[in-house]
Protein backbone atom coordinates (compact mmCIF):
# COMPACT_ATOMS: atom_id res chain seq x y z
CA UNK A 1 0.00 0.00 0.00
CA UNK A 2 2.86 2.34 0.89
CA UNK A 3 4.41 1.60 -2.48
CA UNK A 4 1.16 2.43 -4.22
CA UNK A 5 0.84 5.72 -2.37
CA UNK A 6 4.42 6.57 -3.20
CA UNK A 7 3.84 5.76 -6.86
CA UNK A 8 0.70 7.90 -6.93
CA UNK A 9 2.62 10.76 -5.34
CA UNK A 10 5.34 10.41 -7.96
CA UNK A 11 2.76 10.41 -10.75
CA UNK A 12 1.24 13.57 -9.31
CA UNK A 13 4.71 15.10 -9.21
CA UNK A 14 5.32 13.98 -12.79
CA UNK A 15 2.06 15.61 -13.89
CA UNK A 16 3.39 18.98 -12.75
CA UNK A 17 6.62 18.50 -14.72
CA UNK A 18 5.34 17.12 -18.02
CA UNK A 19 6.08 19.18 -21.12
CA UNK A 20 3.03 18.76 -23.33
CA UNK A 21 2.95 19.84 -26.97
CA UNK A 22 1.88 23.46 -27.24
CA UNK A 23 -1.89 23.77 -26.92
CA UNK A 24 -3.27 25.44 -30.07
CA UNK A 25 -5.84 28.22 -29.91
CA UNK A 26 -8.87 26.48 -31.38
CA UNK A 27 -11.25 29.39 -30.95
CA UNK A 28 -10.89 30.87 -34.48
CA UNK A 29 -11.55 27.54 -36.19
CA UNK A 30 -14.39 26.65 -33.85
CA UNK A 31 -15.80 30.16 -34.12
CA UNK A 32 -16.13 29.86 -37.88
CA UNK A 33 -18.37 26.86 -37.27
CA UNK A 34 -20.39 28.80 -34.75
CA UNK A 35 -20.81 31.80 -37.02
CA UNK A 36 -22.80 29.54 -39.29
CA UNK A 37 -25.25 28.68 -36.55
CA UNK A 38 -25.43 32.23 -35.25
CA UNK A 39 -26.22 33.61 -38.67
CA UNK A 40 -28.81 30.94 -39.35
CA UNK A 41 -31.38 32.61 -37.14
CA UNK A 42 -30.87 35.97 -38.80
CA UNK A 43 -31.15 34.22 -42.13
CA UNK A 44 -34.51 32.75 -41.33
CA UNK A 45 -35.88 36.27 -41.41
CA UNK A 46 -33.93 37.19 -44.52
CA UNK A 47 -35.15 34.01 -46.16
CA UNK A 48 -38.70 35.26 -46.02
CA UNK A 49 -37.62 38.39 -47.87
CA UNK A 50 -35.68 36.40 -50.44
CA UNK A 51 -38.55 33.97 -50.94
CA UNK A 52 -40.88 36.88 -51.56
CA UNK A 53 -38.45 38.37 -54.08
CA UNK A 54 -38.12 35.03 -55.85
CA UNK A 55 -41.87 34.67 -55.98
CA UNK A 56 -42.16 38.05 -57.67
CA UNK A 57 -39.47 37.10 -60.18
CA UNK A 58 -41.00 33.73 -60.94
CA UNK A 59 -44.56 35.00 -61.24
CA UNK A 60 -43.37 37.82 -63.49
CA UNK A 61 -41.42 35.54 -65.77
CA UNK A 62 -43.01 32.18 -65.43
CA UNK A 63 -43.02 31.59 -69.15
CA UNK A 64 -39.30 32.26 -69.42
CA UNK A 65 -38.27 30.34 -66.35
CA UNK A 66 -36.75 26.91 -66.77
CA UNK A 67 -35.09 24.40 -64.52
CA UNK A 68 -32.02 22.37 -65.29
CA UNK A 69 -31.27 19.55 -62.90
CA UNK A 70 -27.97 18.06 -61.99
CA UNK A 71 -27.80 15.47 -59.26
CA UNK A 72 -27.35 17.55 -56.13
CA UNK A 73 -27.82 20.94 -57.76
CA UNK A 74 -30.54 22.96 -59.42
CA UNK A 75 -29.90 25.60 -62.05
CA UNK A 76 -32.85 27.84 -62.67
CA UNK A 77 -33.14 30.52 -65.32
CA UNK A 78 -35.06 33.63 -64.35
CA UNK A 79 -35.78 36.94 -66.15
CA UNK A 80 -33.97 39.01 -63.54
CA UNK A 81 -31.92 38.24 -60.47
CA UNK A 82 -33.26 39.39 -57.10
CA UNK A 83 -30.89 41.52 -55.04
CA UNK A 84 -28.22 39.40 -53.40
CA UNK A 85 -27.61 39.35 -49.66
CA UNK A 86 -25.40 42.16 -48.35
CA UNK A 87 -21.69 41.38 -48.42
CA UNK A 88 -20.44 40.13 -45.08
CA UNK A 89 -17.03 41.18 -43.78
CA UNK A 90 -14.59 38.89 -42.00
CA UNK A 91 -12.43 35.93 -42.97
CA UNK A 92 -13.15 33.94 -46.13
CA UNK A 93 -15.04 31.21 -44.35
CA UNK A 94 -17.41 33.68 -42.75
CA UNK A 95 -17.81 35.85 -45.84
CA UNK A 96 -18.76 32.90 -48.00
CA UNK A 97 -20.55 30.95 -45.29
CA UNK A 98 -18.33 27.92 -45.72
CA UNK A 99 -18.67 26.59 -42.17
CA UNK A 100 -15.88 25.39 -39.91
CA UNK A 101 -12.28 25.55 -41.05
CA UNK A 102 -10.23 22.37 -40.91
CA UNK A 103 -6.50 21.92 -40.78
CA UNK A 104 -6.40 19.38 -43.60
CA UNK A 105 -8.48 17.84 -46.36
CA UNK A 106 -8.50 14.60 -44.40
CA UNK A 107 -10.00 16.25 -41.35
CA UNK A 108 -12.75 17.84 -43.44
CA UNK A 109 -13.40 14.52 -45.16
CA UNK A 110 -13.94 12.85 -41.83
CA UNK A 111 -16.40 15.55 -40.84
CA UNK A 112 -18.16 15.29 -44.20
CA UNK A 113 -18.25 11.52 -44.32
CA UNK A 114 -17.18 11.41 -47.96
CA UNK A 115 -13.90 11.51 -49.80
CA UNK A 116 -13.04 14.85 -51.33
CA UNK A 117 -11.97 15.32 -54.92
CA UNK A 118 -8.87 17.52 -55.14
CA UNK A 119 -7.64 19.11 -58.38
CA UNK A 120 -4.11 17.79 -58.58
CA UNK A 121 -3.16 20.55 -61.00
CA UNK A 122 -3.82 23.12 -58.28
CA UNK A 123 -2.22 21.09 -55.51
CA UNK A 124 -3.31 21.08 -51.91
CA UNK A 125 -5.72 23.89 -51.01
CA UNK A 126 -4.75 26.83 -48.84
CA UNK A 127 -7.86 26.50 -46.70
CA UNK A 128 -10.41 23.73 -46.18
CA UNK A 129 -13.93 24.08 -44.81
CA UNK A 130 -16.93 21.94 -44.12
CA UNK A 131 -20.44 23.16 -43.40
CA UNK A 132 -23.55 21.17 -42.66
CA UNK A 133 -27.12 21.74 -43.82
CA UNK A 134 -26.29 21.12 -46.56
CA UNK A 135 -23.08 19.10 -46.10
CA UNK A 136 -20.61 20.93 -48.33
CA UNK A 137 -16.84 20.56 -48.32
CA UNK A 138 -14.95 23.51 -49.79
CA UNK A 139 -11.34 23.85 -50.90
CA UNK A 140 -10.10 27.44 -51.06
CA UNK A 141 -7.13 28.42 -53.20
CA UNK A 142 -5.63 31.85 -52.75
CA UNK A 143 -4.76 33.93 -55.83
CA UNK A 144 -1.36 33.20 -57.35
CA UNK A 145 0.43 33.58 -60.67
CA UNK A 146 -1.59 30.89 -62.42
CA UNK A 147 -4.79 31.61 -60.53
CA UNK A 148 -5.98 35.22 -60.74
CA UNK A 149 -8.22 36.64 -58.04
CA UNK A 150 -11.97 36.37 -58.41
CA UNK A 151 -14.27 39.23 -57.39
CA UNK A 152 -13.06 38.36 -53.91
CA UNK A 153 -9.42 39.49 -53.79
CA UNK A 154 -8.48 36.70 -51.38
CA UNK A 155 -9.96 33.90 -53.49
CA UNK A 156 -8.31 32.43 -56.58
CA UNK A 157 -10.60 29.42 -56.76
CA UNK A 158 -13.35 27.83 -54.77
CA UNK A 159 -13.88 24.11 -55.21
CA UNK A 160 -17.09 23.01 -53.53
CA UNK A 161 -18.51 19.53 -53.36
CA UNK A 162 -21.46 17.73 -51.85
CA UNK A 163 -23.12 14.36 -52.17
CA UNK A 164 -24.99 14.15 -55.47
CA UNK A 165 -28.37 13.09 -54.16
CA UNK A 166 -31.03 12.59 -56.81
CA UNK A 167 -33.83 13.81 -54.59
CA UNK A 168 -32.18 16.68 -52.77
CA UNK A 169 -30.08 19.57 -54.00
CA UNK A 170 -27.21 21.13 -52.08
CA UNK A 171 -26.45 23.93 -54.54
CA UNK A 172 -28.92 26.27 -56.16
CA UNK A 173 -28.23 28.67 -58.99
CA UNK A 174 -30.26 31.43 -60.53
CA UNK A 175 -29.17 32.68 -63.92
CA UNK A 176 -30.59 35.63 -65.78
CA UNK A 177 -30.43 36.63 -69.46
CA UNK A 178 -26.86 37.46 -70.38
CA UNK A 179 -25.49 34.34 -68.71
CA UNK A 180 -24.63 31.38 -70.90
CA UNK A 181 -25.29 27.80 -69.93
CA UNK A 182 -23.06 25.40 -71.82
CA UNK A 183 -23.50 21.62 -71.33
CA UNK A 184 -20.17 19.89 -70.76
CA UNK A 185 -18.83 16.49 -69.82
CA UNK A 186 -16.19 16.34 -67.12
CA UNK A 187 -14.43 13.09 -66.26
CA UNK A 188 -17.40 11.22 -67.67
CA UNK A 189 -20.00 13.15 -65.71
CA UNK A 190 -22.50 15.64 -67.07
CA UNK A 191 -22.37 19.27 -66.11
CA UNK A 192 -22.57 22.90 -67.17
CA UNK A 193 -20.24 25.81 -67.74
CA UNK A 194 -22.05 28.95 -66.58
CA UNK A 195 -20.50 32.18 -67.79
CA UNK A 196 -21.08 35.58 -69.28
CA UNK A 197 -22.79 37.32 -66.38
CA UNK A 198 -22.89 36.94 -62.63
CA UNK A 199 -25.41 34.42 -61.43
CA UNK A 200 -26.99 33.83 -58.05
CA UNK A 201 -25.59 31.06 -55.91
CA UNK A 202 -27.11 29.69 -52.74
CA UNK A 203 -27.09 26.62 -50.52
CA UNK A 204 -30.23 24.60 -50.04
CA UNK A 205 -30.86 24.16 -46.32
CA UNK A 206 -31.94 20.89 -44.74
CA UNK A 207 -35.56 21.99 -44.82
CA UNK A 208 -35.35 22.22 -48.60
CA UNK A 209 -35.52 26.01 -48.64
CA UNK A 210 -32.91 28.33 -50.09
CA UNK A 211 -30.29 30.11 -48.05
CA UNK A 212 -29.41 33.75 -48.71
CA UNK A 213 -27.62 33.94 -52.02
CA UNK A 214 -24.63 35.80 -53.38
CA UNK A 215 -23.45 36.67 -56.84
CA UNK A 216 -20.97 34.26 -58.39
CA UNK A 217 -18.78 34.59 -61.46
CA UNK A 218 -18.01 31.91 -64.07
CA UNK A 219 -18.62 28.44 -62.71
CA UNK A 220 -18.17 24.88 -63.83
CA UNK A 221 -20.54 22.45 -62.14
CA UNK A 222 -20.78 18.73 -62.73
CA UNK A 223 -21.34 15.29 -61.25
CA UNK A 224 -18.39 13.04 -60.50
CA UNK A 225 -17.84 10.07 -58.20
CA UNK A 226 -21.20 10.45 -56.50
CA UNK A 227 -20.62 14.11 -55.81
CA UNK A 228 -21.79 17.38 -57.29
CA UNK A 229 -18.75 19.60 -57.72
CA UNK A 230 -18.45 23.27 -58.61
CA UNK A 231 -15.37 25.28 -59.42
CA UNK A 232 -15.68 29.04 -59.18
CA UNK A 233 -12.69 31.02 -60.39
CA UNK A 234 -11.55 33.70 -62.82
CA UNK A 235 -10.18 31.07 -65.22
CA UNK A 236 -11.76 30.71 -68.66
CA UNK A 237 -13.64 27.61 -69.78
CA UNK A 238 -10.71 25.62 -71.28
CA UNK A 239 -8.50 26.22 -68.26
CA UNK A 240 -11.31 25.44 -65.82
CA UNK A 241 -12.07 22.22 -67.69
CA UNK A 242 -8.38 21.36 -67.57
CA UNK A 243 -8.35 21.85 -63.80
CA UNK A 244 -11.53 19.80 -63.43
CA UNK A 245 -9.94 17.05 -65.49
CA UNK A 246 -7.35 16.58 -62.75
CA UNK A 247 -9.88 16.07 -59.95
CA UNK A 248 -8.91 12.88 -58.14
Amino acid at each position, binding site marked *: MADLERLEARLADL*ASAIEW*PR*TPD*LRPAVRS*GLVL*SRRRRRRQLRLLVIAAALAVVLIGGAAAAAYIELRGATVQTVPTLPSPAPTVSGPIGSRLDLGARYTSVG*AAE*RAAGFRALVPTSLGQPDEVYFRSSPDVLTLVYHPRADLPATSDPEVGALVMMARASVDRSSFGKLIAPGARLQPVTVNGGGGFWISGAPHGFFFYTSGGGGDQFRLASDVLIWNQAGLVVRIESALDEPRTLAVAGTMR
Partner: protein
Amino acid sequence: MVGRPLDEIEDTLVERARRGDADAYEELVRRYTEMAFRAAYLVTGSAPDAEEAAQDAFVKAFRALSRFRAGAPFRPWLLRIVGNEARNRRRAASRRAALELRVAEGIRAGGAAPSPEAAAEAAEERRALLRALVMVGDDHREVVGCRYLLELSVEETAATLGIPEGTVKSRLARALAHLRELMEPVRHG
Protein backbone atom coordinates in the same frame (compact mmCIF):
# COMPACT_ATOMS: atom_id res chain seq x y z
CA MET B 1 -9.29 15.52 -8.78
CA VAL B 2 -12.69 13.97 -8.23
CA GLY B 3 -16.02 15.24 -6.99
CA ARG B 4 -15.58 18.55 -8.75
CA PRO B 5 -18.24 20.93 -7.37
CA LEU B 6 -20.83 22.08 -9.83
CA ASP B 7 -19.46 25.18 -11.46
CA GLU B 8 -22.23 27.74 -11.57
CA ILE B 9 -20.40 29.89 -14.09
CA GLU B 10 -19.94 26.87 -16.32
CA ASP B 11 -23.61 25.98 -15.98
CA THR B 12 -24.51 29.50 -17.04
CA LEU B 13 -22.14 29.37 -19.99
CA VAL B 14 -23.50 26.02 -21.09
CA GLU B 15 -27.08 27.22 -20.81
CA ARG B 16 -26.28 30.37 -22.80
CA ALA B 17 -24.49 28.28 -25.42
CA ARG B 18 -27.50 25.95 -25.61
CA ARG B 19 -29.56 28.99 -26.55
CA GLY B 20 -27.10 29.73 -29.36
CA ASP B 21 -24.82 32.23 -27.63
CA ALA B 22 -21.56 31.74 -29.53
CA ASP B 23 -19.63 34.04 -27.17
CA ALA B 24 -20.55 31.83 -24.23
CA TYR B 25 -19.48 28.77 -26.16
CA GLU B 26 -16.22 30.41 -27.10
CA GLU B 27 -15.53 30.90 -23.41
CA LEU B 28 -16.18 27.19 -22.87
CA VAL B 29 -13.78 26.42 -25.72
CA ARG B 30 -11.16 28.66 -24.11
CA ARG B 31 -11.61 26.91 -20.76
CA TYR B 32 -11.38 23.40 -22.11
CA THR B 33 -9.07 23.59 -25.11
CA GLU B 34 -6.04 22.49 -23.14
CA MET B 35 -7.84 19.59 -21.50
CA ALA B 36 -9.42 18.47 -24.78
CA PHE B 37 -6.18 18.78 -26.74
CA ARG B 38 -4.12 16.88 -24.18
CA ALA B 39 -6.73 14.15 -23.80
CA ALA B 40 -6.78 13.75 -27.58
CA TYR B 41 -2.99 13.72 -27.61
CA LEU B 42 -2.89 10.88 -25.08
CA VAL B 43 -5.15 8.86 -27.37
CA THR B 44 -3.66 9.70 -30.76
CA GLY B 45 -0.02 10.30 -29.85
CA SER B 46 0.05 12.96 -32.56
CA ALA B 47 -0.21 16.69 -31.94
CA PRO B 48 -1.74 17.49 -35.39
CA ASP B 49 -4.30 14.70 -35.00
CA ALA B 50 -5.05 15.85 -31.47
CA GLU B 51 -5.62 19.39 -32.72
CA GLU B 52 -8.01 18.23 -35.40
CA ALA B 53 -9.80 15.90 -33.01
CA ALA B 54 -10.28 18.63 -30.41
CA GLN B 55 -11.41 21.14 -33.03
CA ASP B 56 -13.93 18.76 -34.55
CA ALA B 57 -15.13 17.77 -31.11
CA PHE B 58 -15.86 21.37 -30.13
CA VAL B 59 -17.79 22.02 -33.33
CA LYS B 60 -19.77 18.79 -32.98
CA ALA B 61 -20.41 19.45 -29.31
CA PHE B 62 -21.90 22.84 -30.14
CA ARG B 63 -24.22 21.28 -32.68
CA ALA B 64 -25.19 18.60 -30.15
CA LEU B 65 -25.85 20.99 -27.26
CA SER B 66 -29.59 20.69 -27.78
CA ARG B 67 -29.25 17.07 -26.67
CA PHE B 68 -27.14 17.95 -23.63
CA ARG B 69 -29.06 17.32 -20.42
CA ALA B 70 -29.37 20.59 -18.48
CA GLY B 71 -27.53 20.49 -15.16
CA ALA B 72 -25.38 17.50 -16.12
CA PRO B 73 -21.59 17.90 -15.85
CA PHE B 74 -20.24 19.35 -19.07
CA ARG B 75 -16.66 18.04 -18.90
CA PRO B 76 -17.37 14.29 -19.22
CA TRP B 77 -19.93 15.00 -21.93
CA LEU B 78 -17.36 17.00 -23.89
CA LEU B 79 -14.60 14.48 -23.20
CA ARG B 80 -16.75 11.68 -24.60
CA ILE B 81 -16.97 13.58 -27.90
CA VAL B 82 -13.24 14.40 -27.82
CA GLY B 83 -12.41 10.76 -27.12
CA ASN B 84 -14.59 9.58 -30.00
CA GLU B 85 -12.92 11.99 -32.40
CA ALA B 86 -9.45 11.03 -31.19
CA ARG B 87 -10.11 7.30 -31.47
CA ASN B 88 -11.54 7.78 -34.96
CA ARG B 89 -8.30 9.44 -35.99
CA ARG B 90 -6.22 6.75 -34.35
CA ARG B 91 -8.17 4.10 -36.27
CA ALA B 92 -7.78 6.03 -39.51
CA ALA B 93 -4.01 6.23 -39.10
CA SER B 94 -2.15 3.24 -40.46
CA ARG B 95 -0.19 3.07 -37.23
CA ARG B 96 -0.38 4.87 -33.94
CA ALA B 97 2.11 7.69 -33.51
CA ALA B 98 4.58 7.28 -30.68
CA LEU B 99 3.57 9.43 -27.74
CA GLU B 100 6.34 11.90 -27.06
CA LEU B 101 6.30 13.45 -23.62
CA ARG B 102 9.20 15.14 -21.92
CA VAL B 103 9.90 16.25 -18.40
CA ALA B 104 10.55 19.93 -17.92
CA GLU B 105 13.81 20.68 -16.14
CA GLY B 106 14.00 22.87 -13.05
CA ILE B 107 10.58 21.87 -11.70
CA ARG B 108 10.34 21.32 -7.96
CA ALA B 109 7.46 19.98 -5.98
CA GLY B 110 7.28 22.92 -3.58
CA GLY B 111 8.68 23.78 -0.18
CA ALA B 112 12.28 24.77 0.30
CA ALA B 113 14.61 24.75 -2.67
CA PRO B 114 16.26 21.31 -2.85
CA SER B 115 19.99 20.83 -3.03
CA PRO B 116 21.40 20.43 -6.53
CA GLU B 117 21.87 16.72 -5.84
CA ALA B 118 18.27 16.29 -4.66
CA ALA B 119 16.96 18.24 -7.66
CA ALA B 120 18.97 16.07 -10.04
CA GLU B 121 17.69 12.92 -8.32
CA ALA B 122 14.09 14.13 -8.55
CA ALA B 123 14.51 14.94 -12.23
CA GLU B 124 15.98 11.49 -12.90
CA GLU B 125 13.10 9.84 -11.02
CA ARG B 126 10.61 11.72 -13.19
CA ARG B 127 12.39 10.69 -16.37
CA ALA B 128 12.48 7.08 -15.19
CA LEU B 129 8.78 7.14 -14.40
CA LEU B 130 8.03 8.64 -17.78
CA ARG B 131 10.12 5.93 -19.49
CA ALA B 132 8.18 3.30 -17.56
CA LEU B 133 4.91 4.93 -18.57
CA VAL B 134 5.92 4.66 -22.22
CA MET B 135 6.66 0.96 -21.72
CA VAL B 136 3.41 -0.13 -20.09
CA GLY B 137 1.38 -0.30 -23.28
CA ASP B 138 -1.29 1.90 -24.81
CA ASP B 139 -4.26 0.87 -22.68
CA HIS B 140 -2.40 1.26 -19.41
CA ARG B 141 -0.69 4.49 -20.43
CA GLU B 142 -3.98 6.06 -21.49
CA VAL B 143 -5.75 5.28 -18.27
CA VAL B 144 -2.82 6.43 -16.13
CA GLY B 145 -2.39 9.51 -18.28
CA CYS B 146 -6.02 10.49 -17.96
CA ARG B 147 -6.20 9.89 -14.22
CA TYR B 148 -2.83 11.22 -13.08
CA LEU B 149 -1.37 13.45 -15.77
CA LEU B 150 -4.63 15.13 -16.77
CA GLU B 151 -6.21 14.65 -13.35
CA LEU B 152 -9.50 13.47 -14.82
CA SER B 153 -12.09 11.77 -12.66
CA VAL B 154 -12.98 8.11 -13.19
CA GLU B 155 -16.14 9.23 -14.99
CA GLU B 156 -14.18 11.60 -17.23
CA THR B 157 -11.53 8.98 -17.93
CA ALA B 158 -14.21 6.47 -18.88
CA ALA B 159 -15.83 9.04 -21.17
CA THR B 160 -12.53 9.91 -22.84
CA LEU B 161 -11.48 6.34 -23.42
CA GLY B 162 -14.96 5.03 -24.27
CA ILE B 163 -14.88 2.30 -21.63
CA PRO B 164 -17.00 1.59 -18.53
CA GLU B 165 -15.96 3.11 -15.22
CA GLY B 166 -15.38 -0.36 -13.80
CA THR B 167 -12.90 -1.04 -16.58
CA VAL B 168 -11.12 2.21 -15.78
CA LYS B 169 -10.65 1.08 -12.17
CA SER B 170 -9.48 -2.44 -12.97
CA ARG B 171 -7.24 -1.30 -15.79
CA LEU B 172 -5.77 1.40 -13.57
CA ALA B 173 -4.97 -1.13 -10.85
CA ARG B 174 -3.15 -3.34 -13.35
CA ALA B 175 -1.35 -0.37 -14.86
CA LEU B 176 -0.09 0.83 -11.48
CA ALA B 177 1.07 -2.66 -10.60
CA HIS B 178 2.91 -2.85 -13.88
CA LEU B 179 4.50 0.55 -13.30
CA ARG B 180 5.65 -0.50 -9.84
CA GLU B 181 7.32 -3.57 -11.32
CA LEU B 182 9.06 -1.50 -13.94
CA MET B 183 10.23 1.01 -11.34
CA GLU B 184 11.72 -1.63 -9.04
CA PRO B 185 15.23 -1.48 -10.46
CA VAL B 186 15.27 2.26 -10.11
CA ARG B 187 14.09 2.30 -6.52
CA HIS B 188 16.47 -0.37 -5.35
CA GLY B 189 19.23 -0.02 -7.88
